[in-house]
Each structure stands twice: as C-alpha cells, then as structure tokens.
C-alpha cells in the first residue's frame, strides 16, 4: 500500500475520532452547565479548552471563555485546526485523495458528514445553544463510519492503519478528558464527595460514554474507581489500556505482512506501555500524581504516533 494512502487512512480515523470526542465532551458539559448554574462560565468552560491544549489560540481568537465562545471554538471554528469542523473537513480532504482506496459507502458517508457539519457551521446561530441533536449526529457520524469501514473494506493493511489511528486517538482523548478533573474542577477539601463533585465525576464518565458501563461494573461512584476504569479497565473500549493493547495487536498484524523485524520503535513502545498498564494499579497512579501520570501517557502516545509516521509514512529512499 502507498505510504501516502496509509497515512491518509490513519488520519481520517484520527480526525473523525477526535471530532466524536469533542462533540461528546462539549455535549456533556452543556448538560452539566444546567446542573451547575452557580458556577461561572469561565470555570465551567475553560477546562474544556485547557484539555485540548489549544488555550493560547483560544485566548487570541476569543479572549472571554463564555459558553458560546468555547462552543464555537471547539465545534465550528476553522481557524482551530482541531475543531469538529476542521477535523471533518480534513478527514474529507484525506478521503478525497484516496478515493480509489476506500469503499464508495465510506466516501459517501464522509462526504455527507462533511456537508452536515458545514451546513451547521453556516447556521451556527440556529444550532447554539440547543445543540444536543447536532452533537449527537456528529457522534453517530463517527460511529457509523467505523461500522462502514468494518463492513465494506477488506480487513487488510489499510483497514488496520485506520484502526490504529482510532485507538491512538482514543487513548489520547480519554486520558485528556480524565485530566479535565485536574484543571479547575479540582475541589476544595470540603467539596470532595459532595453532590457537585459527584456530578462532575459522572460527567467525566459520560464524556467518554462510560457512565453506564462503569455503573454496571462498580455500581457506586468512587473517584478512584473511575480513574481505574478509564485508564486500566481490560474490557471497556475507551479505556487507555484497552486502546493501547489493541493498537499493539493491530500493529502486529500490519508488521506480520511485512518482511523484517517486528521490533519497530512504535511496537516496542506500545508493548511496554500496555504491559505497564496491565500491571499498574490505581493507587500507584494516584501516588505518582494523576495529572503527572496522564501527562506521561500522552507523551508516550505522541511518541508512538511519531514512530508510526517514521516507519510507515515518511520512508526515506
């Protein structure tokens, strides 16, 4: 498979997964804001921008972190390279360059998805603030793409690179969303275990679609258990561990079809990371410092991405 094509499939999936995460994240926060009317906008919405690591750009473009500003920045602003609109547009541009490599259904869906978001961006005044339906459509647009990929393209190299993109992006985003609790939501001692604290923790779960699955696994809401679930759970498809171990399996399948060693740098890092997550317990994470631990996870995930790029996409002659 052409390196450029593999690169595009990988990024289509990363972009769409990112759009899904942003949409869910913003949607949950919108609903959370209704339960926490006494909290000022800045405290309610700035953490979202902080977790996306685009704070500087936001301040430059908007200044004030009002709900509407943050919403527009994360969802519709094409000057923000990571907004839902930019992600879907970039996914489509990538799909356009590899149309002959993907199924017609996949292309039609991405194309339709783009028009959905573009039209919404044009009519953003009608979308905001009752954005629930639209954000749900974005989430479903991403989920539908996964289903279409699984059922219409051969499960060979291209599909594997797509999956790899999905898992890498998702591991990163779950970690970041968990980290939102570190930014500003950090409660004062007397608020730990309060109603507000619990509402916020359940929002974190909902932001990664984990609320019901967590409930079924642990029942009551305990912050420690929530951290354990989102980082270490063996079976939940958005936990960091699940994503890294599956990324590792996928990478192994890709390398199997190649001649030469399977000890590429990306493989080594993924294998070491998933093995670490397998044997780590949540107490150790908290002792290390959750924010610091998440920072470390993100650094490794970024390095894995860079290694994948060097090995498969940007081959030297």
């Amino acid at each position, binding site marked *: 498979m052409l390196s*450029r094509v593999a690169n595009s499939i990988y990024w289509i999936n990363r972009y769409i997964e990112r759009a899904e995460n942003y949409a869910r994240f913003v949607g949950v926060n919108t609903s959370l804001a209704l339960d926490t009317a006494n909290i000022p906008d800045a405290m309610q919405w700035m953490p979202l921008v902080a977790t996306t690591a685009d704070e500087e750009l936001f301040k430059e473009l908007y200044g004030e972190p009002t709900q509407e500003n943050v919403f527009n920045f994360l969802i519709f602003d094409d000057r923000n390279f990571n907004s839902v609109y930019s992600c879907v547009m970039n996914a489509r541009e990538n799909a356009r360059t590899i149309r002959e490599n993907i199924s017609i259904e996949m292309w039609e869906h991405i194309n339709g998805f783009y028009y959905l978001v573009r039209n919404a961006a044009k009519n953003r005044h009608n979308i905001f603030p009752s954005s629930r339906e639209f954000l749900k459509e974005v989430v479903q647009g991403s989920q539908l793409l996964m289903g279409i990929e699984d059922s219409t393209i051969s499960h060979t190299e291209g599909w594997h690179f797509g999956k790899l993109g999905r898992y890498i992006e998702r591991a990163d985003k779950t970690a970041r969303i968990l980290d939102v609790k570190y930014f500003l939501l950090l409660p004062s001692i007397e608020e730990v275990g309060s109603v507000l604290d619990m509402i916020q923790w359940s929002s974190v779960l909902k932001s990664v679609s984990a609320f019901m699955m967590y409930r079924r696994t642990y029942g009551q809401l305990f912050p420690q258990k929530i951290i354990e679930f989102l980082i270490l759970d063996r079976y939940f498809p958005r936990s960091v561990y699940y994503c890294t171990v599956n990324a590792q399996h996928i990478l192994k399948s890709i390398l199997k079809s190649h001649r030469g060693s399977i000890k590429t740098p990306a493989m080594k890092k993924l294998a070491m990371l998933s093995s670490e997550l397998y044997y780590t317990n949540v107490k150790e994470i908290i002792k290390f410092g959750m924010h610091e631990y998440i920072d470390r996870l993100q650094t490794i995930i970024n390095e894995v991405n860079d290694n994948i790029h060097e090995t498969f996409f940007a081959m030297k002659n």
Partner: protein
Amino acid sequence: MTFEDYDIEGFFDEMFTPDHQIKQGYVPFSEFVANLSIDDLVQKQHAAERSLMALGITFNVYNAEGGTERIMPLDIIPRIIEGREWDKLEEGLKQRITALNLFIDDVYNGQKVFTDGVVPKTLIESSKCFLKPCLGLQPPKGIWCHITGTDLIRDQHGIMRVLEDNLRCPSGVSYMLENREILKRTFPKALDDTQVRPINNYAISLREMLEYIADKPSPTIVVLTPGIYNSAYFEHAYLALQMGVELVQNSDLVVKNGHVYMRTTKGLKKVDVIYRRIDDTFLDPLTFNPESLLGVPGIFEVYKKGKVALANAPGTGVADDKVIYAYVPKIIKYYLGEEAIIPNVPTYLCENPEDMQYVLDNIADLVVKEANEAGGYGMLIGPKASAEEHEIFRKKIKANPRNYIAQPTIQLSRVPSLAGERIEGRHVDLRPYILYGKEIVITPGGLTRVALRKGSLVVNSSQGGGSKDTWVLY
C-alpha cells in the same frame, strides 16, 4: 408531456426533422416521456443532480466564489445516435488515429512527411508541443497516442466534422460513464426499450491497453495525478478505482537505479506503466520545465531506456496543434492513401498571408483560436464579440500569425434540453474516447457536451457547459 411547443428555430436538431417529426432513434424515448408531466421531468432532473452531489462527482473551478467544487451539470435528456451513423464515425476515427500515430512517429523519427513536402517543417519547429528531447524516441509497440478524446461537431447541414483532436490526456470519460449510471436510474424503461449499446467496459479496455504496452505479465500500473487541486482529480481517482490500480502523485514516485518506484508501507515497489494525467512539460523537471513541482525527476531517462511505459507518450501533443489540425486530411492521405472519412472544419491559417487577410477582414463572422490552447480559453467567437474584442484579436494575430487559426462559426446541432421548467434546444458536441493498444477500441458514443446557456456555442464545463448521456443504437 409532448414536444408540441418545441421549436428547432432553424437549427439542425438531433431529435426532430425540420418538419417536426421525431427521428427514428428517439421514438421509444419520446413515447416514454409522453407519459410524464414537465414536473416529473424536472423532478427527475433534480434527483439526478442530487445523485451527482452524493457521489461527489465534481470538478474544481479555480478562483470561483463559494467553494472550489461544482458538479458537472447533467441534462437528463439523452443524445441519441443511430447505429449506422456511429459505425461510420468509428471507422473514421480509427482512420484518423492510425494516421496521426504514424505522423507523430515520423515527426520524431525520420521526418519523411517534411521532406515529401506534405507538412512544412517550420510549422513543427515553431510548435510549442514539439519536444526536441523526444527525437529518436521509440515508444513501446510504436504507439504514441494511447488515449484520445476527439471532439466532433455536427454542422447546420447535419455533417459530422472533427473540431479538435485532443491527444493530450483528454478528460471527461468519467462523466460519460457516470452519466450512464445516473440515466439507468432516471429512465430505466426508456433505456431498455431503446436498445442502447453498453459503455461500461471502458475501464477494462483501458487496463488491457496499459498492460499491452508494458510487455510483461501482471505489470504494476499506476495513474499519475497532479493532485486534488486539479480540475479533473475526480476522474483520476475514478479511473484508478475502476481499473484497480494505485493513484499516485509525484511525491509517491522516485527514480532509482534506472527504474521508477513508488513508496509503499513495505518499501519501494517498481512501477511498469504510468497513465499520466500531467502535461508533457511538467513530467520531468530534469528534461523539460525545470520549475515543475508536479513531475518526477529522472523519469524521462527511464522512459527512453524502455524501463517504464507512459501513456500518452511525451511529445504526442505535436499532432494536437491547431495549425497541424488543418493538415490532418493531407496527413491521412499521405500515410494511408485514403480520403478522410470524417471531414475537418474549414480552417484558415493566419500563417499564410492570404488567409490572414481574409481573417482580418471577416473576423466578425469567424471563430479565432490560439494554436495551443484548450478548454475554450484563448478563443474569440466573432459574431458574439464586440468591435473592441475584434480589434484586440486583430492585433494579436498580426503580432504572432503562427499562433492563430480561424474557422467559420458553425451552428452546432441541438438537442432538446431542460431549461428551468421548459424544454428548449441547446447546442452540443460529441467527444468519443479512443484507446489505441493491441487494437483501436472506441467506446460507443462518448461524452456529449452541451452549452446550457441559451444561444451559447461554448460547451466547456469551465464556461457554463454541461453534459448529456449519449445513446448509440444497435
């Protein structure tokens, strides 16, 4: 609905005779349409447009407001050609391509056509499309023009004529193929009743032709595109998909150890045949335009040594020059000893002083074209232009006579077309697609382009043109 109000307005009409009788080929179609209201037709038209949008069948327009992508408008009323007429056109096109291929080969090897005084040598040497580095070149199997899209027009007397030869990566074949798919949904019954020749083996024939010039079993074939900003990008991707080959950009290719390779996730892979959709002079910055960012450095050397096949061969454009065009009937006679089956449009070469004087005096009645331009650019339609524009072109011609030709304004034949909620005649041309491999294969029909603006004679998609499905009967 019936066509009672339809007025041919004195033009040659593809569907109606001058006394308003429906021509034989259109009878089943008109019977089918008789059961529909104009609203039904308009709805079908909208459904067709939605399908095009959903399929992403678009072309790019440079510097256009409101996004760079547009759909190529498709008018759902088909253009129908009788089988007997088509068979003769096919014969004529084969004759023309055979002769042009011999001509190109001669230009770069031997140049007998000049020494025998058929075509003046100076014309070739002054042609922008004549490529010196191609002298002595022997393309695989002696074929230069593998893919051609000859433009045909029908004049006011009903005579089909060649307007242009288009030997340089002609586009539009994907629209031809998709138009048929859309019309299968729009008029399934009429299509069935009319008994239309199929066109869907084009991609198979194209692949067979490319394999033929590789001269090895299971060659690696690629389509080379300038990228997504090219107006025909959709077509490049479409053809690669239909043939089951990789679509590559220049950055995917690299020349190494005397071969062309593509970069894959498993390392470099050798490429045997390239259907290139970039212009000759952009192909290789080392041989041609050093500023080209679209090309692959060193590819021309590999090609010259026969280690990779290119379709079409570089240098082919020399036979596409509009001045050479005027000589094609002589070229056919010279190489094949036959009269041209499909006539040219009468052409004045401003290079000849007598012709130039005629053109300057009669510019208001003529169409003036630049010798090397395509796509309807660099052209003057005398009867539609202002006196100032006439004057500008007179100056241009006098400054560089070699670069201009002129032809009488031909009133292209018309086909009924949807104009809002009415049916009116619109002017059309026809671009059949010709593949030259082991044998010459021509897809029945081709792309009928239609000037959708009332009264317009310009069918180019960049200038308000659309297309129609073309039905060739048995």
